[in-house]
C-alpha cells in the first residue's frame, strides 16, 4: 500500500485520525462518500459482554453492549477495516485495515487507537494466540503471500511467514496452538489451497488443494482440531454458460479438510435446487463443535449446519465417494439445520461464549441480527 501515498494521502489521512469517532467514510472501492458504515466483521469480547463491529465503509469500529443491545462507542481506525481479534484479557482489539495495509490497536478501556502497525498488502484476517502474546495477520494482496506476525506486547511486527500461494485471505489457529490453517484465495487459480503452517518454524508443512475452488472466504478449526472447514465457491468455468439454469456457473460449498497429513478434502454442497447459498462468507462454530454457522452474504441469511452429521459424511466416505457429493443438490438436507433470514449482506458471524446466540453483521442494512441458536 506504500504506493497509495501518491494516490491521495490527504483523503486517507483525514480518516486516519487516531482516537476519534468516525465521520463519513467511502463506499468500498470508490471515493464516493457515505454515512453508511457497512458492518463487515463482528467479534465478541471473551466474556461475551461486548460486540466489536468493523465498519468497512465507515472506517471505524463500533462497540455494542451485548446485553442492552445498545451502541456504546465508535472508534476511527484505518481505511476499510475487514477483520479484528481481541486479546484474551479483553484489553486490546487488533483491527486489520485492508486499504491502509496496517493494523490498528484499540485500547478497549480508553476506546482509543494507541498504535498503528504497518503490515503487508491488504490485511484481511487476524487471529491471536490463547496466551495473547502473538497476532497472526493474513495479508491477502493479489501478489502478496505473507502471514505477518505481531508481538502484541510490543505492538510491533516481528516477522513474516510465507505462504505457498498468493492471497492468504484469513487463517485460524489450531486448538493446541501448534498449527495455523491459512486459506489462499489466489487470483487466477481454480485450485485454491489451504496451508498448514508449523507455528514454531513458520514453515508450510502441507499445502492441501481444494480442487475447482474460488472465493475462499473463511476457515475455522473444529474444537478437537481434527478438521478445518472452509467456505468457498465452485466455478464451473470450463462449461459454456448456456448451462446456467442447471447450476453450471457457480455452486456454493464448504470444504471439510482432515488436518492429518494427506487427509481427505470433502467438498460439500450448501445449495438446494432453486435455493442456492450464493456467496458464502464468514464462519462460526460453537465451543462443543455441534453447529456451524455460515454468513451467506449474497442471499441475506445465515445457514446452520449440524457438524456431527457433516463429519459423519466425511468419516463415512472415501475421497472418491466424497468427490461425487459436491454437486448433489439434495444432499445438504443430510446436515442442514436451518436457513435463517437476516439483514442484508451478512458477511461475518460470531457466537456468544456459551454458543446460545449467533450475531451476524449485515453489511448493507447497517445492523446486527441476533439469532437464537439451537444450543440449549
Amino acid at each position, binding site marked *: *500500500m*506504500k*504506493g*497509495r501515498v*501518491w*494516490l491521495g494521502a490527504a483523503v486517507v489521512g483525514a480518516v486516519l485520525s487516531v482516537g476519534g469517532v468516525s465521520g463519513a467514510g467511502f*463506499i*468500498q*472501492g*470508490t471515493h*464516493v462518500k457515505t454515512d453508511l*458504515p457497512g458492518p463487515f466483521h463482528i467479534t465478541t469480547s471473551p466474556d461475551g459482554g461486548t460486540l466489536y463491529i468493523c*465498519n468497512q465503509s465507515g472506517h471505524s469500529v463500533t462497540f*455494542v453492549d451485548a*446485553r442492552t*443491545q445498545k*451502541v456504546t462507542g465508535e472508534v476511527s481506525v484505518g481505511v476499510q477495516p475487514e477483520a479484528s481479534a481481541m486479546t484474551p484479557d479483553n484489553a486490546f482489539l487488533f483491527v486489520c485495515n485492508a486499504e491502509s495495509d496496517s493494523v490498528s490497536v484499540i485500547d478497549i478501556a480508553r476506546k482509543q487507537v494507541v498504535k498503528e502497525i504497518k503490515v*503487508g498488502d*491488504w490485511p484481511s484476517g487476524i487471529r491471536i494466540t490463547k496466551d495473547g502474546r502473538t497476532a497472526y495477520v493474513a495479508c491477502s*494482496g493479489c*501478489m502478496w503471500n505473507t502471514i505477518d506476525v505481531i508481538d502484541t506486547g510490543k505492538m510491533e511486527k516481528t516477522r513474516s511467514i510465507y505462504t505457498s500461494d498468493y492471497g492468504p485471505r484469513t487463517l485460524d489457529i489450531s486448538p493446541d496452538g501448534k498449527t495455523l490453517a491459512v486459506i489462499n484465495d489466489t*487470483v*487466477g*487459480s*481454480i485450485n485454491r489451497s489451504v496451508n498448514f503452517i508449523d507455528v514454531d518454524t513458520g514453515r508450510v508443512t502441507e499445502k492441501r488443494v481444494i*480442487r*475447482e475452488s*474460488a*472465493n475462499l472466504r473463511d476457515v475455522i478449526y473444529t474444537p478437537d482440531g481434527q478438521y478445518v472447514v472452509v467456505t468457498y*465457491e465452485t*466455478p464451473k*468455468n*470450463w462449461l*459454456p*454458460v*448456456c448451462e446456467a*439454469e442447471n*447450476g453450471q456457473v457457480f455452486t456454493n460449498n464448504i470444504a471439510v479438510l482432515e488436518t492429518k497429513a494427506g487427509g481427505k478434502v470433502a467438498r460439500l454442497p450448501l445449495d438446494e435446487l*432453486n435455493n*442456492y447459498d*450464493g*456467496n458464502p462468507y464468514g464462519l462460526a462454530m460453537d465451543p462443543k463443535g455441534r453447529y456451524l454457522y455460515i454468513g451467506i*452474504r*449474497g442471499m441475506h441469511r445465515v445457514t446452520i449446519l449440524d457438524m456431527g452429521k457433516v463429519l459423519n459424511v466425511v468419516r463415512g466416505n472415501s475421497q472418491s465417494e466424497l468427490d461425487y457429493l459436491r454437486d448433489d443438490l439434495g444432499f445438504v438436507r443430510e446436515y442442514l*439445520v*436451518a*436457513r435463517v*433470514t*437476516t*439483514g*442484508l*449482506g451478512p458477511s461475518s458471524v460470531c457466537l456468544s461464549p456459551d454458543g446460545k446466540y449467533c450475531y451476524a453483521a449485515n453489511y*448493507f*442494512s*447497517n*445492523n446486527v*441480527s*441476533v*439469532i*437464537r441458536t439451537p444450543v440449549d
Partner: protein
Amino acid sequence: MRSGIKKIGLVAALGLFGVVTTGQLMAGTPQVVATIQTGPEWEPLPRAEPLTVPEVHYRVKHSPYKSELVRYGQFQFNDASWNLQGEYSCASCHYERGQTTGLIWDLGDEGWGSWKNTKYIRGGRYLPPFRHEGFTGHPDEIVGATSSLDRVCGRDPGFVFRSENFSPLRLEALICYIRALEFTGSPFRNADGSLSDAQKRGEKIFNDPNVGCAECHPGDVSDPKALFSDAQTHDVGTGRVGVKGFRSTPGKVFNLKALEAGEDPYGEESDTPIIGLDLVKEFDTPTLRDIYASGTYFHDGSARLLIDTINNTVNDKDMHGRTSHLTAQEMQDLVEFLKAL
C-alpha cells in the same frame, strides 16, 4: 438482555424477519430474536417493472457519483437473490473489491468455445472500450446500451444470470457503482511513492524503443492519471488462429482434460476448433494500472503471471514487445516495474 430479546422476538415472529427451516417452526428453532441497528437504516431499491429488451440506448441520467445510487449499485453487485436460484452475484467473478477472480470463462457472446479472461473493472470508466476485442466506447455503456455487460447485466441479464431484467433505476445504480470504482494503487513502490532500484531499471527497459512497451502502453510513471494504454487494438501474437481452422499453440492455453484430471489446466491443447473470439487477432490494449491485481493476463487468460506476458511462452515471439534479446534479470526488472503501476 433476554427481556429485550423477548420483546423484539415477538415483533420478529410477526413477520419482520423471515425464518426458513428444514422442518416445522418449533421451540428451539433457530431464529432472529433481535436486530441491533448500528448505523442508518437502509433498504434497497424495490424491484420495479423490469427494463424491456427493446429499450437499448440507455444512459446514466444522474450524477454517477451520487452516493445513494452508488450504494444501491454496490448492493446489487453483491446480491445473489435476483439470480435464478440465488446461485451467484457479480462479486462471484469480480469479487467485492471490484477486482477479479482471474478466472477464464466461456460466456458465449463471442461464440462458444473461446476462453475469455474475467476483466478487472476498477478504473474501468477511464478507458473504454471494455471488451477484449475492443467493442463499445462510451463509459456509460459499461453496463449500458451495446456492451457485453449490458447483455449480461442490463437489458437482458437472463443470458448469464437467468434472472429478470433490471428496472431502469436499478440498472442505473449498477452502472454508477461500476463507474465509481477506482484503481487501488500499487503496494510495491517505496513508502514515499518512488520506484525501487529494480523498478527504475525496469522503467528504462519499458521505455526503450528497441523493446517497444511504451508504443502501445504510453504513460509517465510520475503522472497518477497515466493509464499506460493507447486505447487501440493490436495483434500481439495471442490470436489463436492456426492451420486447418484449429487453435494454434504458440504457448499454453487452457486445457479441459488437465483440469478434469485435477492438474494445471494451462497445458497444451492443439485440437480446439477456432470459433468466436479466437477468430480475432487484434485485442484491446488494457491499462497497466493495477496490473499487479488484474491477473490472469491476455484476453484468454493464457498468461498466468506477468512474466508470461513478456517471455514469449504464450504468444508469438516478439509480438508483445520485442523482448527475446533481454536477459532474465532484465525481464525480472521489467516485471518489477509493471508491478509498481
